[in-house]
């Protein structure tokens, strides 16, 4: 019998393989180690694995002048995927720093005495984190609807478990369960849409769909496109498909929230741009307008709802919804400038997301309570570094220097403007105006509470948390650095989107 192995470009899969390999290694070896050694072991190897994967993606990025298909028309090897992999791995790397001492001072939000077991499920946490990053790295390479769905489920399931991993907290369990149910619903819609598209075109591969869409059954194709959009919008938490976001962000351990907020957005948005531009160029009128609509709803809903939040993690969750709106604007613009803008925006956005949740985690560990605007009082004076950095992040989310998002937002608006959609720019600016209120509210809470309203940390100041501080510092460097090094970064992003063809 003649057995022919498929011709596989292993290099293209290197980041994913490194991540999955490390995940398996951490999980298998970690359980045999004495409890005391598990944290250091698993965190070190997780960080190393993420770093290696990012480096591998970077090397591929440097090599790949042109895009190529690999692995039987289901996986892309191109700079877009590699750039997204670098970003996702970076977010994962920062999340390792946030999670390192998370168990030392567990948050206690429902009156139950939380056991401070530093080593509980630490190996699982890191193995799942690696699996989630691996899933995302696979997801952003997807070139057919099956790979897309596989990648989506791969990282989603890892995230469902991670959300619920603080089993001693009811809110964490509840969030995990909600995420699982609603997430499955979203995945089902995506799968349903994929089935429609397959039914209409008989193809799964993106470019094959584009080719076949000419004489496809219009009804099914369009319905499929709409449902796929919904499934992806769900993952990037764009309104009105975002309802899980506040609950999950609030309930999940803060390190996992930090990771989700940054990495899921990167993966979902990059893939959305890829699938729409490659598989549905003929339907661009539909999806550009559709995305613009979703962007508007997200901007309005996210910003309005954020205004009235008192829990900081919920507030940041709604801010993430509104940023889904901002991030959809460049994709909706459907031009090359938009592609660049999206990636450039994501760099500083991802860093700021992880960074701001990391600072929330720092406060959480002092108080051992969920952080609200109320008990953030005086934080800026007590912890000057965290305070100033948080202020930089908040100004950055508004779109002000010294954060790179300042230019990211500018480019996003510029892309919409180039498309001729001044109205979308106006909506974006109005959204920004509303957002100023709650972002400055965080700064005001940190700095402008009178002394007596400040909450003293329970049980004295917490022990030094070097990994967390390093994470915040790195996030700050990336945030500010993306403004300083704007020009080379934008050139890099131009290379990254070179493999896509934009309709406008």
């Amino acid at each position, binding site marked *: 019998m003649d057995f022919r192995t498929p011709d596989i470009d292993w290099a293209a899969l290197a980041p994913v393989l490194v991540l999955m390999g490390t995940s398996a290694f951490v999980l298998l070896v970690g359980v045999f180690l004495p409890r005391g050694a598990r944290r250091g072991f698993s965190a070190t190897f997780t960080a190393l694995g993420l770093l290696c994967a990012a480096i591998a993606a970077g090397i591929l990025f440097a090599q790949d002048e042109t895009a190529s298909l690999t692995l039987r028309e289901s996986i892309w090897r191109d700079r877009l995927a590699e750039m997204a992999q670098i970003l996702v791995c970076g977010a994962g790397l920062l999340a390792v720093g946030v999670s390192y001492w998370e168990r030392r001072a567990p948050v206690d939000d429902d009156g139950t005495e939380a056991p401070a077991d530093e080593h509980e499920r630490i190996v699982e946490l890191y193995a799942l984190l690696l699996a989630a990053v691996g899933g995302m790295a696979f997801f952003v390479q997807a070139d057919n609807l099956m790979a897309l769905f596989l990648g989506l489920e791969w990282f989603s399931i890892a995230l469902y478990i991670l959300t619920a991993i603080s089993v001693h907290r009811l809110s964490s369990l509840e969030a995990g369960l*909600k995420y699982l149910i609603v997430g499955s619903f979203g995945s089902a819609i995506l799968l349903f849409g994929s089935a429609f598209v397959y039914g209409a075109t008989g193809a799964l591969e993106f470019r094959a769909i584009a080719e076949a869409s000419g004489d496809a059954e219009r009804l099914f194709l369009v*319905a499929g496109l709409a449902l796929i959009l919904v499934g992806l919008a769900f993952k990037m938490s764009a309104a*009105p*498909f975002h*309802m899980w976001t506040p*609950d999950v962000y609030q309930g999940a351990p803060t390190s996992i929230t930090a990771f989700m907020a940054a990495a899921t957005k990167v993966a979902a948005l990059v893939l959305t741009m890829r699938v729409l531009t490659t598989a549905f160029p003929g339907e661009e009128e539909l999806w550009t307008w559709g995305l613009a609509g979703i962007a508007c709803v997200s901007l309005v809903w996210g910003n309005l709802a954020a205004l009235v939040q008192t829990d900081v993690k919920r507030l940041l969750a709604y801010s993430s919804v509104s940023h889904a709106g901002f991030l959809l604007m460049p994709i909706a613009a459907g031009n090359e400038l938009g592609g660049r803008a999206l990636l450039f925006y994501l760099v500083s956005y991802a860093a700021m997301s992880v960074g701001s949740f990391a600072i929330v985690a720092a406060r959480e560990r002092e108080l051992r309570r969920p952080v609200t605007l109320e008990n953030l009082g005086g934080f800026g004076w007590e912890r000057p570094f965290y305070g100033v950095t948080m202020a930089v992040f908040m100004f950055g989310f508004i779109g002000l220097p010294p954060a790179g998002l300042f*230019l990211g937002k500018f480019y996003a608006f510029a892309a919409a403007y180039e498309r001729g959609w001044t109205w979308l720019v106006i909506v974006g600016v109005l959204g920004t105006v509303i957002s100023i209120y709650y972002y400055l509210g965080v700064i005001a809470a940190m700095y402008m509470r009178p002394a007596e309203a400040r909450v003293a940390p329970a049980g004295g100041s917490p022990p030094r948390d070097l990994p967390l501080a390093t994470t915040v510092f790195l996030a700050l460097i990336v945030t500010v650095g993306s403004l300083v090094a704007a*020009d080379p970064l934008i050139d890099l992003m131009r290379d990254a989107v070179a493999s896509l063809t934009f309709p406008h």
Partner: protein
Amino acid sequence: MTGAAWTALVSPAVAVVLIALAGERITRRGAGFLAAGATLVSFVATLVVFFALLGRDAEERSESSTLWTWLSAGDLRFGFEIAIDPLSVFMMLVVSGVGFLILSYAVGYMHGDVEERRYHAYKALFVFSMLLLVQAGNLLLLLAGWGMVGLSSYLLINFWHQRGSAVRAGKKAFIMNAFGDATFALALFILIAETGTLSFAPVFERAPEALGEGSTLATLVALGLLGGAVAKSAQIPLHTWLPDAMEGPTPVSALIHAATMVTAGVYLIARTNPLFELAVDIQHLAAILGGVTIVVAGLIALVQTDIKRVIAYSTMSQIGYMFVGAGLGAYGAGLFHLMTHAFFKALLFMAAGIVIHALAGEQDIRKMGGLGRELPWTFRFMLIGALALAAIPPFAGFFSKDAVLASAANAGKLGWVLWGLGAAGAFLTALYTFRMLFIVFGRQASGFVREHLHKERFEGPLAMAWPVAVLAVLAVVGGLLQIPGVWHAVDDWIHPVAESIEEASGATAILSALAALGLSLAGIAVAWILYRRPSRAPERARRTAPWAAQLLENRFFVDEAYDVYFYEPASRGASFLHRFVERPVFLTTLGDLGASVRGGGRRLGTAQNGVVRSYAFAVAAGAAVLLVVFLIAS
């Protein structure tokens, strides 16, 4: 060499960061030494650059170095780019050299102040801003330095923030400077629109074609730049902030409001001379404003009673000379005067600082007297400064002022008018300078002095004394760098960047110098007669011409005029808008709008009820809407 130039720029910034981060881990004095040391590093690095340039041919002395390009759009590149050329190195030498002396002096002067560290950090920030201003390789970065200089000046003027007058003075300086910043920025917008770039060389290259000589656009650009220069250099009509700025600590006055920042306007005109030469009328306007300022400031200085304000008005007046030089195209003469002025004016301020220090903060010259015997060294320093200011040979001011006047004498009819103003200014300068000197150091020791004088071993801390001595030496010999008709070191040095006009030679030059010298001596003589000992002559003069006294003592009513013509209409307009627009529209309508926005947020919050089925419903409903819209649209 480029490395040295970057070191010079970055070193004070590093000091700022270190002082800010170190907090109480370093002593207050340590912060001062750190700031001064960083400036010394700048100075040494500048010397390295200077000698490197000196070793080259004159035409090869200009280069630029870009650390990184921040953004580029077509030809318009925003980069962190510095220019290394004779003009910037000249300014760097003045800024870092005099800056180092003053920062060292400040270590002694500010000793014991509660917020000393903040002071030294601001001071180093100022030096960094000023170096950024003079080293900037494109107009955008120059504007950044321009604005930062204004900011650090603001921070330092109201350093003693418990004093209401200091805070007001800081605000005033900031607002007037902001006005200049705005016109400067507007000029840059025109340049971007017309030439598509802001880097020096390409702008100057393209400007003649893009703007056109003498065109409206060229005039507007020059006018905008001039607005910036006039505001920063406290020339008429944007001069009123400078005397008030004396509320800051004395070393601040010496550094910012005498030696460096206020001369930035002259630098700007010299730097952008190709643009000004496209609009000669505006350049002449600069010279005329300078000429008027010489005389007006000189007159006002005659009646000032605050020792620092006298010097402040003399600064305005001396910058007037620099404007005359730069405005007539005698860039070398203007910059030469800038340099010698930095020496002797810093010297005067710092000597005055010793006096103020010795009298426990008193600045009113009417309460002083007889200090010459008590503070003999300070008196000598002050005398050197005064002689240099009054342009008596061989002190530095003589040569530089003479260079300006000699250039004016060779610049046609307008030049002669300005020469006249300058000569009148020479008389006034000598008169008010020596009035101050005789009142403070001559006469009998007043009761106030006998009561309050406390002397230390060197008439002040050593840290204060030695920089003053160094400046005194420079004020004596600094003028020998350029002697009209003999050699032109400064002209030749900056020649590749800004070509100066020929100055008068031969008999005209000698006559011009003699006439100015004669007027200066006359001024000193008059001061001797009137102010050597308390006399009634000034009082009699006041009675014969009360209107003149009024006019001078109220500083030509410029502040009042600004109040009447700008402040009051603006404030009336503001209260009108407050009553009829803000309250009905913003506070109620927009307030309601804000409340309803928050209400909307709350209502959206109720949709978020925590029940999974409603979340699934929202997803399904959204999907249904999208589906229907898509199907209808296709």
